[in-house]
């Protein structure tokens, strides 16, 4: 009997598989606050077929249809405002020339996420590249601001996408803004390529945002969480302690009439 149990257990363990998410930096940098605003640079979009107001509407759908639905993460993205920005956001380089990607300090985003259209061909290796994203304002392990550039060159592919695809593209880029890299599996939002029938987060999208921004219910102590935070162990102890307290309370007060539990 015992070898069968071990074999069955091993079979079970082999069959259970989770996805694999990656990060966009080795330090697992994250936004400090649980709510992050996503703003749009005004008057920069010429060739993507939509204006900034519609782009902001797409952002609202992207955050509400995807990332804000993760049940185990505390990060919430909010559609912000359309605001004037430097002209360099439309024409400048996202990374300094001749670097792997040292962010261009001229375009540092002071807070939250900024989405701009950009027509500099050096930012996009081809017109098939829909957008590029970099957290370009970092302090220690904290993201202060991130920048998304949508390919606004003539002949870009973004203009031909359906609205639903545009929503998923923006949602994908937003994943990069708060610390995620790509996923190897096509059913994930963070897969490198768009999928026409993208509707929900994949399992490793949820795992990735949870890893970076774990929820801490029912109470939290601040909004910055370090990895292996003792607060997490405290939560486990709270849960076990609560149950033990209830059990011990009844045992202490009313342990008087012990009878066999009436079961059929």
């Amino acid at each position, binding site marked *: 009997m015992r070898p069968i149990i071990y074999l069955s257990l091993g079979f079970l363990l082999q069959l259970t598989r989770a996805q694999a998410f990656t990060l966009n930096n080795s330090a697992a940098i994250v936004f400090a606050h649980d709510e992050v605003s996503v703003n749009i640079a005004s008057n920069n979009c010429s060739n993507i077929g939509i204006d900034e107001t519609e782009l902001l509407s797409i952002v609202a759908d992207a955050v509400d249809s995807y990332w804000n639905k993760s049940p*185990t993460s505390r990060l919430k993205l909010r559609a912000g405002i359309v605001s004037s920005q430097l002209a360099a956001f439309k024409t400048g380089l996202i990374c300094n020339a001749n670097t792997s990607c040292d962010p261009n300090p001229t375009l540092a985003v002071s807070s939250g996420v900024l989405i701009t259209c950009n027509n500099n061909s050096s930012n996009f290796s081809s017109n098939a590249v829909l957008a590029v994203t970099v957290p370009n304002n970092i302090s220690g392990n904290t993201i202060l601001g991130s920048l998304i550039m949508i390919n606004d060159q003539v002949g870009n592919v973004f203009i031909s996408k359906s609205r639903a695809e545009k929503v998923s593209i923006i949602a994908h880029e937003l994943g990069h803004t708060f610390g995620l890299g790509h996923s*190897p599996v096509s059913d994930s939002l963070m897969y490198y390529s768009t999928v026409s029938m993208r509707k929900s987060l994949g399992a490793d999208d949820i795992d990735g945002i949870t890893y970076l921004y774990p929820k801490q219910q029912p109470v939290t102590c601040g909004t910055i969480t370090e*990895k*292996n935070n003792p607060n997490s162990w405290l939560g486990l102890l*709270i849960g076990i302690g609560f149950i033990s307290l*209830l059990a011990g309370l009844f045992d202490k007060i009313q342990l008087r009439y012990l009878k*066999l*539990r009436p079961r059929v």
Partner: protein
Amino acid sequence: MKNSKYSIILFYYSFFFLILGKVYAYDVSLSVGNLCEYVGKIQTDDSGSTNLCGFDPLIAGTFEYQLKNQFSLAPEIGLTFPKSGRDSYINKMSLFAIANGKYNYSNYHFIAGVGLFFTRLSSSGGNEELRNGTGTASFPLANGVVYSRNFILNFGAGYDFNKDWSADVLAFLFNALHKEDRAVSVAFKGIYHFGEL
């Protein structure tokens, strides 16, 4: 404010059981089953299909206190078997500690309770080469262990086949007070009752 509302729910729930009176008996049980995670929330293929129930086996132990008027209190601790990623980089498991109240009626029982649900994610670091635009890039992997903690409400029902065996269906409701990220996981369990030890 949302977090304090969960604490208030916890307080009233525990107060309800304080007034039920004395303990008559207890029962220790062990259950094995499957957890269907976040039903309908996760995309599973390129055509837009979402999950119904994946393979996520669990094991749990319960210490049930028989109270009066067919009520019992059944704190339970359980966990899902650790998962390895498809490419073995990420390890995930879930743990839960729940305080369920049960109402027994004939061979049926009905369950309601509160608890904590922990999601454990871990990885050993390194890099993975993945497609990026028209080329590839080296993406860092997570390095370390993280726990997320959710306050959950539980609802369910079960059937007692005999004094030794029963079965339960239990729904874990995440973020009950927040529509934006509300989700439901469902656990199906077969239970063996050891009785009083």
